[in-house]
């Protein structure tokens, strides 16, 4: 209902699209847009694309296409290559060729991981307070001896790694 109201307000004439406008000069036939036509594509699984790569041939290329209708043994190597390049954009070798993109990606990743490290530096410097005194070397040494004296985790843990006879860590 509302749509028809809009139509009557605006007028049917101006709803005409660009396609219609062009049709007036072409005896009522709408010009096909490029995207509706078969296109060229470089894909490994499409060995013969629907159209040739070069659509509009120069005069030189048109002459070559005429020569192609005759015996192919008369064509020089350069002419054959030119005919190939008219029909195809990239060869399979060019299509499959790897790039150096991985270097940029990996380098970028490592760089931003480095930025993360800079954030940690900022935090330690500006944000965190001093660590508890129980992490000092003296305290850790005394704490470790006390744990070993208590036989803490004697099966597979810390006391299992201490040699009580030789008074040293097991090798």
């Amino acid at each position, binding site marked *: 209902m509302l749509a028809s109201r809009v139509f009557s307000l605006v007028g049917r004439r101006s709803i005409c699209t660009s396609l219609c406008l062009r049709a007036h000069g072409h005896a009522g036939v709408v010009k096909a847009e490029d995207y509706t036509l078969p296109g060229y594509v470089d894909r490994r699984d499409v060995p013969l694309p629907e159209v040739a*790569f*070069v*659509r*509009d*041939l*120069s005069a*030189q*290329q048109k002459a*070559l296409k005429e020569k192609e209708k005759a015996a192919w043994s008369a064509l020089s190597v*350069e*002419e054959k*290559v*030119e005919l190939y*390049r*008219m029909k195809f954009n990239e060869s399979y070798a*060019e299509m499959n060729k790897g*790039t*150096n*993109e*991985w*270097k*940029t990606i*990996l*380098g*970028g*990743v*490592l*760089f931003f*991981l*480095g930025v993360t*490290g*800079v954030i*940690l*530096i900022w935090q*330690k410097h500006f944000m965190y307070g001093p*660590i508890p005194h129980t*992490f000092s*070397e*003296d305290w*850790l*040494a*005394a*704490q*470790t*001896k*006390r744990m*070993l*004296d208590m036989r803490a985790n004697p099966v597979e843990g*810390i006391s299992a*790694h201490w040699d009580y006879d030789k008074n040293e*860590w097991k090798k």
Partner: protein
Amino acid sequence: ARGIQQTAVRQAHRKHEPSFHDKYGTVVLLGGAAVFTSVWGYVLTQLGIEWGFSPTGRITPKEWRE
């Protein structure tokens, strides 16, 4: 669809312009690796962060009884 001008020139006119990755990829990779190793080397060793490593094999026990 650009028509190719010189039919005589075979390889040269098909050589595509070097991409960003061709020109700068190696530099970006090495630079990023350098930034990474320097920053994290500092963080892991010099910054004074307590990582809480195991005392096993590291700490020499000291007498604690008074």
